[in-house]
């Protein structure tokens, strides 16, 4: 049986192209499963998974939990706002306590960059990164690429622009790694204050004019402005941000080619994207959500199969 090249899913930057191909092949199968009348397989009846969310999440947490349940794993959930440090217990202690209860896989979202890599060096378990600060959100990038592949046939050679708050976005960074690995061309677009100064070192282009970016792109992935991660104001007002970087139907209609619109959610309607775009056929936002479950099933299944081997 084919297996992933990594023992944990900490970030896209640790994967090779064959890993992504394997995850997609597996996800194709699970996508068919979750569209059956009985949306469940017994594959992970002997596996226990803990979802540790040290940061708020609705869709990612639900998506992981559904994926786990559809694989028949036993699931426990742990949520805490802020990091474990604030509660007086270290992250290592929290996780070791949970592992003592014979948990096999940890799915974790954490506000601190590198928390998963840190954890992987100090505890003995399988870890899936469900988002760490402004670093990576690998399953989101995988489901985004999977959705592009589903809509456009392939990711290789496609032109993808990621629009918005690149500086505070783990979705952007993981997407850049995933898209580059699959041979897509990538640009980022947004106010210079929200684009990391050295972003071009990752092999992506920078465009500050949204119209030009959309004219260039096959796909536009619209990001939410991460106000909660900002220590200062990076632009004067939401109103002005929308004038410069909001996508609306009028703008899309004025562009010759048809751009596929994506959004990792939650959407701020009327800010980065208007309702007439979000609800149009050009947008694949809900397909992304559906694919999220299949992708997460694939990732969990592939890592769990390493335990069984």
């Amino acid at each position, binding site marked *: 049986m084919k297996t992933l090249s990594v023992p944990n899913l900490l970030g896209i930057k640790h994967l090779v192209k064959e890993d992504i191909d394997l995850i997609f092949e597996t996800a194709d199968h699970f996508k068919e499963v979750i569209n059956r009348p009985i949306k469940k397989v017994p594959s992970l009846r002997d596996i226990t998974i803990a979802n540790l969310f040290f940061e708020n999440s609705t869709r990612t947490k639900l998506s992981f939990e559904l994926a786990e349940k559809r694989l028949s794993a036993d699931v426990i959930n742990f949520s805490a706002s802020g990091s474990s440090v604030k509660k007086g217990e*270290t992250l290592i202690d929290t996780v070791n306590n949970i592992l003592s209860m014979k948990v096999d896989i940890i799915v974790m979202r954490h506000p601190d960059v590198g928390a998963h890599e840190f954890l992987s060096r100090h505890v003995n378990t399988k870890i899936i990164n469900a988002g760490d600060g402004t670093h990576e959100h690998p399953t989101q990038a995988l489901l985004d690429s999977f959705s592009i592949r589903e809509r456009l046939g392939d990711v290789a050679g496609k032109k993808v622009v990621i629009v918005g708050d690149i500086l505070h976005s783990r979705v952007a960074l993981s997407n850049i790694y995933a898209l580059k690995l699959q041979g897509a061309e990538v640009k980022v677009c947004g106010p210079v204050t929200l684009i990391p*100064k050295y972003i071009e070192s990752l092999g992506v282009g920078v465009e500050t004019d949204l119209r030009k970016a959309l004219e260039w792109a096959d796909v536009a992935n619209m990001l939410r402005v991460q106000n909660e991660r900002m220590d200062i104001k990076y632009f004067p007002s939401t109103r002005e941000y929308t004038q410069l970087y909001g996508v609306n139907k009028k703008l899309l209609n004025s562009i010759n080619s048809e751009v596929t619109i994506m959004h990792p959610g939650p959407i701020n309607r009327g800010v980065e994207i208007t309702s007439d775009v979000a609800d149009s056929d050009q947008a694949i936002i809900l397909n992304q959500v559906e694919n999220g479950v299949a992708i997460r099933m694939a990732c969990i299944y592939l890592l769990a199969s390493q335990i069984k081997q």
Partner: protein
Amino acid sequence: MNILLKSAIVFDPKSTHHNQTVDVLIENGLISKIDNNISCPTNCEEINLENLIISNGWFDASVSFGEPGYEDRETINNGIEVAAKSGFTQIGLNSNCYPFTDSKSMVNFLKTKAAGTPVNIYPIGSLTKKSEGTEIAELYDMQQAGAIAFNDYKKGTKNANLIKIALQYTQSFGGLVMSYPNNCNIAGEGLVNEGINSTRLGLKGTPALAEELQVSRDLFLLEYTGGKLHIPTISTQKSVSLIKEAKAKGLNITCSVSADHLTITDDELSSFDANYKIAPPLRTQQDVNALIEGLKDGTIDFITSDHDPIDIENKKLEFSHAIDGTIGLESLFVSLQDTLGLDLLIEKITTAPQTIFGLSNSTITEGEKANLSLFTTKGTKTFTEEDILSTSTNSAYIGKKATGKVYGTYNNGILTLA
């Protein structure tokens, strides 16, 4: 304790025995005889160390121990032992204890604690009360008690006028003001050097600009006020060139660099190991090269270990929660002698900093006080946790190449061997 050092190569350009292999007899703390084949008198211990080199005792002008306040990180007593075994007979002790070294009584406390030990402690007083950056501390009083300079350790002073007044005020008594090069507003919540690695890892970056803007500001202030200023732990290429220009203009400016910034780059950060979380942040290879060049051309006056012990509870954490700092006394010599060569390295940890802080230079000459570092340049190994003598083990140098070995020191009549 009387000792006879057998077959030691003297490394002291000021000594007539420089580069000679000799026996050195030390009696009652003084160098009583330097000659070939001295026989060991009674009441004297003969010391034979492989490929032994002796130099004047080393001075590390940026060391933190924690005591008082953070004894779990390091006590003064153990810290002194670490310094002595690492080759240092003199240290400048930073003011970042609790309470801060911001008064004459604190300076006296530290001096008293170190009395009778093999290491001379020279406290560096806080520039401002409680190192809060708002009100100047009693600098003259501290200097009278033995403080050698004034610095709010690792805190960039936001108020430019405060630095201006400090530079003017200290001229009455020749006080040395130090200003940590960091513009807090530009640095923001940055954790590491802003660059390719911070981008790749999603870590919030502190741009080199934060340091360079502060250096530029302080140089403007110094040009206006006169007086003398020291900028500790510079870390960027442009800081070197700014200070080089200022020196060429004739400003009384000196600067130093930590050993970490000469040996480690931000390429190490991909492991998210908090031992690499240091202030100023680890920079790029280009910066390292410029810093080494700055040492060679005299722009950078001396090297410090910037030894800063942090307890494991505050280091073995998610990267953003860990406290900045690395220990460095144990690794300074073995990390640098290969790259810099003995002539440059020894100068930058003896005569150069001693002159700037107004300390006397010793020499390896008969009749002089014996203040010696004992070491060899031979042998290569990997620096491991087992080489750490400090209470805290937060070394950024673990796993890296160590060339040579420090045997210890002789100072104040005490032989300390590692």
